[in-house]
């Protein structure tokens, strides 16, 4: 079988993967013979994203676990030469080319030096841009990377389809979480809050205690993932729970 037919077969397998873990496994199955044994893919956090939120950007991960912990703990994403190279370049590249350009930054040196401890000496990175303009990167690493131009072509295609599949699975998972159950009382309270009623006024209208109306609004706020009442009302309107 020719290399391209094999590529098509791999892509077909990737498109039928049912979980992110299966996508990871199949992609690494393709790339490990070229020395690419670790994988990380996801959207790229804005500089300064709090550490607690950085992991939410990860969609595919078969990276040494300790390395991921350290990467997040030390906020390496803001100093990783691979990440900054990718933001400028918008085309696939090899890690070693990224570190060449970034020798001036001491912190970048630290990132790459640390990566080597985890047997991540070199790798390939594929930046892409989603429909909404978010940068997505697939990064594959290992001890030494050895591949021909055609094999590089195969790995880029496989990486693109892998992250595409991961995003499809991600949105599916999101839409499950996305389904929010608001109780009738919570909806009522929100509806009155939307027309500017205070908690006390709401309690009078609905014939409940002020404390209870406050509790309903707090519950609704947290279910809607809102930071405050105004945002909760806006979100409830957007989702069509209240009008």
């Amino acid at each position, binding site marked *: 079988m*020719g290399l*391209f037919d094999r*590529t*098509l077969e791999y*892509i077909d397998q990737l*498109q039928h993967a049912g979980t992110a873990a299966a996508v990871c496994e199949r992609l690494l199955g393709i790339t490990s013979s070229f020395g690419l044994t670790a994988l990380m893919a996801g959207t790229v956090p804005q500089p300064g994203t709090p550490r607690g939120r950085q992991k939410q950007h990860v969609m595919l991960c078969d990276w040494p676990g300790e390395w991921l912990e350290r990467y997040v703990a030390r906020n390496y994403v803001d100093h990783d030469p691979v990440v900054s190279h990718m933001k400028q370049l918008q*085309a*696939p590249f090899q890690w070693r080319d990224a570190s060449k350009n970034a020798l001036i930054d001491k912190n970048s040196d630290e990132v790459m030096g640390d990566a080597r401890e985890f047997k991540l000496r070199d790798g390939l990175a*594929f930046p*892409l*841009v*989603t*429909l*909404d*303009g*978010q*940068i*997505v990167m697939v990064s594959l690493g290992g001890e030494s990377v050895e591949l021909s131009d*055609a094999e590089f*072509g*195969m790995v*880029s*295609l496989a990486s*693109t*389809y892998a*992250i*595409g*599949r991961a*995003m*499809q699975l991600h*949105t599916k998972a999101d839409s499950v979480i996305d389904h929010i159950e608001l109780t009738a009382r919570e909806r009522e309270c929100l509806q009155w809050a939307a027309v500017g009623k205070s908690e006390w006024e709401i309690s009078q209208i609905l014939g409940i205690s002020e404390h209870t109306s406050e509790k309903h609004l707090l519950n609704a706020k947290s279910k809607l993932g809102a930071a405050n009442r105004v945002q909760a009302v806006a979100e409830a309107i957007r989702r069509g729970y209240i009008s």
Partner: protein
Amino acid sequence: MLFALTTQELMERPDLWEAVHRLRYKIFVEEMGWTDLDRPDQLEIDQFDHDEAEHHLVIRNGELAGYQRMLPTTRPHLLTDVLSDLCEGPSPSGPNVWELTRYAVAPGFRDGKRGVSTVGTELIAGFVEWGLKRNVNQVIIEFEPMWVLRALQLHFLATPLGYQRTYGNQQVVATLLTFTEHTLDVVRARRNHHLPVLNRGYPGLLGLKQAS
């Protein structure tokens, strides 16, 4: 508002015809630097603007905001005649397969920095609607690899036709996109716009802003 016109129909409206070829020049020659398409009259026209080509025009506020050209694969097209090194195997062809070329959004209509503008997604909704109406369910596109990801986000079934290659400073990969009614639903849901975008007939004269 998207209008699908044959080359003949386009030529019957000199204002539209000129706007189309001028926009293509601006984007493909000036922005993308495809210098083999350069012409002194600053209109971009090639051998595929034949009488079986179909032109999709998005009109916003009396201006040409977006454009794409559909070519039948039952006669020579870009993948067979110009970009054949993008295709590894036999290139797909048949009455249900068309090639989408010259996808363009005019500079004033690119909202957002990197994402796809509403004119951009209207073009996508437009070719899917147009295809489903005439039993076309597959489209060949030569585009940047990030569009593969975007196509998958919109629930197209995507199949590569070859490896990606570098042209100038651009990466290009030929891809076959297959779509169904479900794809159209996803595209519409993404756009938050569920009404058909494809219009009958001709748009009004360019430059005349319509009261909305």
